[in-house]
């Protein structure tokens, strides 16, 4: 379940059960890259507390086939808005424990503004448009995580 973004070989998009290595992703963003002065990355981690409950782990479900397509569209949209050179986006699925890595978004660009904005934009849209769903194991049993209004409102900053 890994797919290079066909529209630009500088971008890498993957959906996978396996963990990812931030040092490797960062190295890929820098490798043979003499033109970029800025790298911004985001990682999302499983938190112990969420929506008022103690969490002991979670399962990430997705819609295979749509997921890669949605992520590629989000990355393409970000690249059309800002002059970014490389994007690496990895999202895990399956069973995860507290503090596990969920998602990585890394962006390199000549300048910091484009790198910050594109990375932030990709995360905001991923939160609203990419077909992933979290089911948490809490002290009260399993529950599906509720989508939050604040994530929908976060898109407002990009209008």
């Amino acid at each position, binding site marked *: 379940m890994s797919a290079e973004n066909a529209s630009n070989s500088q971008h890498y998009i993957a959906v996978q059960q396996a963990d990812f290595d931030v040092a490797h992703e960062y190295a890929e963003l820098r490798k043979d890259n003499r033109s970029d002065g800025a790298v911004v990355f985001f990682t999302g981690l499983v938190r112990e507390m969420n929506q008022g409950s103690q969490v002991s782990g979670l399962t990430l*479900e997705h819609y295979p086939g*749509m997921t890669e397509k949605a992520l590629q569209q989000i990355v393409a949209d970000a690249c059309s808005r800002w002059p970014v050179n490389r994007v690496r986006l990895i*999202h895990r699925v399956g069973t995860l424990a507290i503090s596990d890595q*969920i998602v990585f978004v890394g962006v390199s660009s000549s300048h910091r503004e484009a790198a910050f904005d594109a990375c932030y934009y990709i995360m905001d849209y991923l939160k609203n448009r990419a*077909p*992933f*769903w979290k089911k948490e194991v809490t002290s009260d049993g399993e529950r*599906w*995580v509720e989508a939050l209004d604040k994530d929908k409102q976060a898109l407002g900053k990009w209008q």
Partner: protein
Amino acid sequence: MNILFFAALREQLGCAQCDIALPLPASLATVRAALIQHFPQQADLFVQGRALAAINQTLINDENTPVNSGDEVAFFPPVTGG
């Protein structure tokens, strides 16, 4: 036509997909209404905003979008990845 369900919606309906009889092309709104008829006990699950829809793996916001024969249609709850 065949419709896919994911996550909480799949669990609440108790099935990952269903077949409904519907003349195509039809609007997404018509498909949504047919689902409500098909699952009368769980009609509220399909309210717009509570169940998002994708046609051919693309999220669709316009309920007037046509669904054609052979399209892959899916309904699912608001997403919670990241």
